[in-house]
């Protein structure tokens, strides 16, 4: 799946497990890449900011994981 551009973050979800954060973007739950602890946290911070301020995001989704994110 290529870039999803100009989308909103409608919901966020996480639980007690390591690096397990998801965002509802463009009609589906998208899991943030969890190869690195801090990357998952960074994505969560950006997504929470985008949701709170209702800004658009561009996300690169590969292999079912969000790999990159812009918040505009």
């Amino acid at each position, binding site marked *: 799946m290529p870039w999803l551009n*100009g989308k*909103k973050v*409608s*919901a966020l*979800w996480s*639980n007690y*497990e*390591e*690096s*397990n954060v*998801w965002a*509802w973007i463009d009609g589906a*739950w998208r*899991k943030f890449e*969890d*190869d*690195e*602890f801090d990357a998952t946290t960074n994505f969560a911070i950006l997504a929470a900011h985008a949701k709170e301020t*209702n800004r*658009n995001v561009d996300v690169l989704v590969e292999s079912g994981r969000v790999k990159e994110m812009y918040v505009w």
Partner: protein
Amino acid sequence: MAKDGKLEPTERPEPYGPLWETLDKGLEDADIRSKLSVELRISGGMPAQAYYFDFRASGAGAVQSEIRCALSGREGQTKGALLDQKDWMTLLQTIHTSGVLDIPQEAPRFLPDTVVGYLEISDGESKHRLYFAADEEQAKVQDKVPPPELVKVVDTIYRLGSQLLDMPSVKP
């Protein structure tokens, strides 16, 4: 580090309809209304005549506006303003009745130094963004006079911006 087999979210966020439908319901339902947001941003012009106007309002109650106009010297910014719910309803009703959501979205194509604006209406899931030439003279010269549906909404926002910034007019 990454592990397979982690739990996944099972609930879905409240479904949103198409933007017009959300707006339609939002006029009757405060919860739905709170999800809507409207943004108008205008900027451009030659350096000596540079103009910038920004207005953002959300149904959650936040509103902010800012103006910088090199030609007229107007300058101002709201601080901690709250959106009057009556004004918010007026704006949403204007959007609803104007037909602005029926105007097709197109990529912006304007000459350099044009004062360009965009109006964005969103329900948090879908958005409708329209670009337009905000300066009347430039719009005429470029044969890009904004449609009356759009002008109606933009004029309503100018009025709200004037109130918020305590200025007689915020128009370019």
